[in-house]
């Protein structure tokens, strides 16, 4: 393929790069303008007031920590629940695989705002049980500003469409049953096999899932704002009314962070994905690609923080 391109005329090569360049301009223009705005005044002089303003107020610490904790938790919970679930379905209930696939795709077709509406209804009905009731306690615990579990759960679900597909594709290339059987006849239990044999062989998809979930969780706005939980993106929005330059700086930083994470996700998907196994070398990158590009698409939704 590459050889074919190299040997063809320059024009063809140019045409091939054209869409990529267009996309780059489309994405980079707003980012660059924000970057310029963050560090240069209208008269063109350099300023770091945006950055220092952020650091000075100290108000950023709590939302930042909150977002970090939520994102880490979401990534961990996602991997710890999704991997065994998909493995179990592959091993023991291959017929449920399509059901699981549909379930995991649902969050993609349900708008985030609808998910929040549903969540709010549930939370309200819990609260409606009255002061001191179990429902009320649950409600408080889920929405606690210290550890907003409701966000963790929501983010895990929002990430399912992409991470499920990636892990599912990774597992499909493995001879799971014989790996499990040869491991268990050697004395290993389920957990050991998962840890020592299965997960190392789907390192790419697992790393992708971790980075992706982290990136989505740290940049998500709609759900957090609607539930009035002060995460980093929500803080950013409030900030824009008092320290506009600061808010733009923060958004640029946030944007770059998510991009880096996504790049890490993509790289790990293809790098660790290149497993030294005869069966999978060819299908794996392909299998991962859709998930990655979909992921990038989905991100734009959440990046539209003001």
């Amino acid at each position: 393929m590459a050889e074919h391109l190299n040997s063809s005329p320059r024009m063809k090569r140019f045409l091939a790069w054209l869409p990529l360049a267009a996309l780059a301009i489309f994405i980079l223009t707003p980012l660059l303008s924000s970057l310029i705005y963050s560090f240069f005044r209208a008269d063109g002089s350099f300023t770091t007031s945006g950055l220092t303003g952020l650091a000075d107020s100290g108000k950023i610490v709590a939302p930042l920590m909150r977002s970090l904790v939520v994102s880490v938790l979401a990534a961990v919970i996602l991997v710890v629940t999704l991997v065994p679930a998909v493995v179990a379905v592959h091993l023991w209930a291959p017929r449920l695989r399509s059901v699981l696939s549909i379930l995991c795709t649902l969050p993609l077709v349900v708008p985030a705002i609808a998910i929040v509406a549903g969540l709010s209804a549930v939370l309200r009905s819990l609260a409606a049980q009255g002061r001191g009731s179990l429902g009320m306690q649950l409600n408080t615990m889920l929405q606690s500003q210290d550890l907003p579990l409701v966000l963790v759960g929501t983010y895990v679900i929002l990430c399912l469409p992409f991470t499920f597909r990636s892990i599912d594709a990774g597992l499909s290339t493995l001879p799971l049953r014989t790996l499990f059987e040869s491991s268990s006849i050697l004395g290993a239990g389920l957990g050991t096999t998962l840890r020592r044999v299965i997960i190392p062989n789907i390192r790419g998809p697992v790393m992708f899932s971790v980075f992706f979930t982290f990136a989505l969780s740290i940049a998500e706005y709609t759900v957090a704002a609607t539930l009035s939980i002060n995460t980093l993106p929500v803080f950013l929005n409030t900030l824009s009314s008092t320290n506009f330059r600061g808010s733009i700086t923060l958004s640029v930083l946030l944007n770059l962070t998510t991009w880096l994470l996504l790049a890490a996700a993509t790289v790990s998907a293809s790098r660790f994905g290149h497993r030294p196994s005869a069966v999978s070398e060819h299908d794996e990158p392909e299998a991962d690609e859709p998930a990655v590009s979909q992921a990038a698409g989905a991100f734009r939704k959440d990046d539209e923080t003001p």
Partner: protein
Amino acid sequence: MTTADNRPRPSRSGIEHTDEPEAVRFEHVNKSYGGTEVLNDFNIDIEAGSMVSFLGPSGCGKTTTLRILAGFEPVNGGDVLVGGESVLKLPPNSRDMGMVFQSYSLFPNLGVSDNIEYGLRIRKVDAGARRRRTEELLEICGLTGMGARFPHQLSGGQQQRVALARALATQPKVLLLDEPLSALDASVRSSLRDEIRRVQQALGTTTVFITHDQGEALAIADRVAVMNDGRIEQYSAPHEVYSSPATAFVARFVGSINEFAVGQDWTIRDRLPIEPAPDHTVFVRPENLSITSAADGFLEVKHSTYTGERTMVHLGLPGDHKARWAASLASVDADDLRPGMRIDASVTAEPALRLDRNDAEGVPA
């Protein structure tokens, strides 16, 4: 669980001996998948420390039997005993068996040494003992210097050796081999076969070796269990399976054989075939069929296949183009036989099997 540490030290040959091989016994085992019965009242006794090969056509239940023994398949009835105790309630990871799968099934994320060490790690054997054991197995299995490679950097035969080494590392009570050589070419096949046998005899591990290659089964095992349709047709020493098959199926499945319809009173001193009333079928090995050229012979030479020292002469009825019988002659004796020549055949040794014609249904004589 015993570790490699408190086992006996390596013997002079560099191979440790398993302290107590265990006998295996299937008692009236029934197994069906859905409505399909695969094993029906299956019984076998495998002596401790011996090697038994399961030989049979595709789909006869060999793998199923092995998987039941390993604990991967539940049974619908009967019992499976190892060392006199039922293992049916034990999960595979506490049965202390070694298994080599047809597809190798090495762990692709682990190097050769780590693959071999896997079972020892699980048994929490300390690093030094693990390394010693691995080195020893690499040597036994002809893999010296390959410990650091990954499975995808090995040839099929080498992967198969690693699979064998991995199965042997924990010194299992029983070693299960499911067509371990079927993916290899002929020369690697026979050398690895001899190696498996050598290692098995040195370690004295009770071993079940599945194959549908009769040569392999006869060459490697102490006893051969010929299976057909979920039953054992014959269970005896390799030479007995060949020279005195118990059933028509065994006679036809192992080696090539001639079938002649003969009368009740026929003996090997009589001509073939004898009139009238052919109510018996005799099974004669090609090397026990002697042919002489005779103008009034009842058979005709169809063609010959030269295989070096011996030549297989294919015979048929005059006027019928099909070759139904074969005689194996020393090549020098087959020189002057030409296709179309009339010949007379006689039997030089007691037939391998003689059956009432009704019991030998199937391929007509």
